[in-house]
């Protein structure tokens, strides 16, 4: 079995050393059937109410320790240590340029695309460092999906947009199987009813909110375990935004979600955990209720009360 099922819902420190080492050696190779099986067991096992303290959050899926990121000579992130709990929405908030998007893009190694970007420290998915030399970044990104700020459907049909991921990863053996993956993904993204009669229409012909749900369906189709969302509603109107927020709330039962948002109201509405970033530093993290009702740090208090940002 793979490293995920090896890891019980216990903090890292309590794991036997041998198990840890085994998990670290194990490369990211996952069959889709195993993945589905894991997903169902995971979603059952972690239905605990969001606790207040970091130590009792439930199973930690991702963990960064002392993460430093530089773009050329500019340091964008300073010593970020943060844990991402399973089947919850973790919101990253903070003023523009605070590094929250940079942090998000470290989690699926999207920063690899940028030449001048240098990442130091450790980012772990379960117990394996995703920046390790044996990690296949393609496999990693199949496990950690991403939805972007601006809807970016491919210039292809609605069907082909969703089918793109399953096709490149060979998730479907037949046309029927691919069809059903596409349907399910569109349904999960709450888009199916609106597009079922025009699956061959270009993805770009949809409205902004529909396009973003298409992008979510496209990400879901690969059957990821974690979905990263980079301000998924910032290009949308309020009605489309509330649609996406409801969808995110649905999705957290099956996926672990990390969401960057500049809207505090949105963080308060959809997330269970909140991390406040300020000038490249992680100022405060905790349950969303706690961070919003009783922030420890004066900078968080200022931001939340609308005095800055």
């Amino acid at each position, binding site marked *: 079995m793979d490293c995920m099922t090896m890891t019980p819902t216990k903090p890292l420190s309590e794991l036997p050393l041998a198990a840890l080492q085994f998990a670290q050696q194990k490369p990211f190779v996952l069959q889709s059937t195993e993945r589905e099986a894991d997903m169902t067991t995971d979603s059952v096992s972690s239905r605990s109410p969001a606790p207040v303290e970091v130590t009792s959050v439930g199973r930690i899926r991702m963990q960064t320790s002392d993460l430093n990121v530089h773009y050329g000579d500019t340091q964008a992130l300073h010593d970020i240590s943060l844990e991402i709990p399973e089947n919850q929405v973790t919101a990253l908030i903070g003023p523009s340029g605070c590094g929250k998007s940079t942090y998000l893009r470290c989690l699926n190694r999207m920063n690899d695309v940028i030449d001048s970007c240098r990442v130091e420290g450790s980012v772990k998915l379960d117990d394996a460092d995703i920046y390790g030399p044996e990690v296949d970044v393609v496999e990693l990104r199949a496990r950690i999906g991403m939805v*972007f700020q601006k809807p*970016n459907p*491919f210039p*292809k049909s609605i069907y082909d947009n969703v089918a793109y991921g399953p096709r490149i990863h060979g998730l479907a053996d037949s046309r029927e199987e691919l069809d059903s993956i596409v349907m399910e993904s569109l349904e999960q993204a709450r888009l199916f009813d609106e597009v079922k009669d025009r699956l061959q229409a270009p993805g770009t012909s949809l409205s902004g909110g529909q396009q973003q749900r298409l992008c979510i369906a496209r990400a879901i189709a690969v059957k990821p375990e974690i979905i990263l969302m980079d301000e998924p509603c910032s290009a949308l109107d309020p009605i489309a935004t509330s649609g996406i927020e409801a969808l995110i709330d649905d999705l957290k039962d099956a996926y672990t979600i990390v969401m960057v948002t500049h809207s505090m109201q949105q963080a308060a509405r959809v997330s269970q955990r909140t991390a406040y970033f300020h000038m490249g530093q992680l100022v405060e993290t905790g349950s969303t209720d706690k961070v919003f009702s009783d922030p420890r740090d004066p900078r968080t208090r200022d931001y939340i009360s609308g005095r800055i940002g």
Partner: protein
Amino acid sequence: MVAALFTGSLVAILVTVGIVLSLVFETFRFLQIVPLTEFLFNPQWSPQTAIRTDQVGASGVFGAIPLITGTLLISAIALAVAAPIGLFSAIYLAEYANSKTRAVVKPTLELLAGIPTVVYGFFAVLIIAPLLRDGGAWAGLSVSSESALAAGLVMGIMTIPFVSSTADDALIAVPLSLKEGALALGSTRSEAIRQIIIPAALPGITGGLLLAASRAIGETMIVVMAAGLAANLTLNPLEAVTTVTVQIVTLLTGDQEFDSAKTLAAFALGLLLFIVTLILNVIAQHIVKKYREQYD
């Protein structure tokens, strides 16, 4: 000041209109001597009219088909060279090269467009043509010392920057968000390029290919020097062929009477060439414009 600027643009427009009109009028005169059907459909081109009207062969034959075939043959060879090389280098530059390599390679490639065509011409005649002839002799083929292949290959090298530069621009113009979207789904770089970026840039790339084609069709100097004068109706790239542009040059160089069919034929050929390249350019610009709108 404004008047001067206006005059400047007016002169350019008037000259263009003048050129087109002269082409049209002279072509009209030509068509009074040689029927349009002969010009377009006769498979023989032999404009060498006798000096005195009572000599044999007093009237030439003006069928443009061998010239058009020769032009298309050479252009096809040129594109067969320029399209893959240009596209590969564009994809490399746009997607793989780091900014330092790019800063060196791109201007160097574009330098190819700045080399005078006459230099390409003697490169074709003095180096490529003998090479092909000797190589052909070694392989047991008879390669004419002036061949469509020699001219086409060199013209292909000349048009590489037209393809690579436009394709590079088109690839760069594909929004980063599309590329990131593909990568975020777990595409490899090559999958993202082949399945998302190139299809998205395809209209721009096509536009570049059409521009290169119209450049190749209108190219004169290389073919004058390397392709030959014989109006053979052939698709064999190892033989000498001639092109529309070469014939215009030969018809109009030297002392000419300005009312003979021979001289007037040059105008008809010129008009034909103008129409073909105009159509190609219009299509190319239309495609490029359409794809720009898609992202802006």
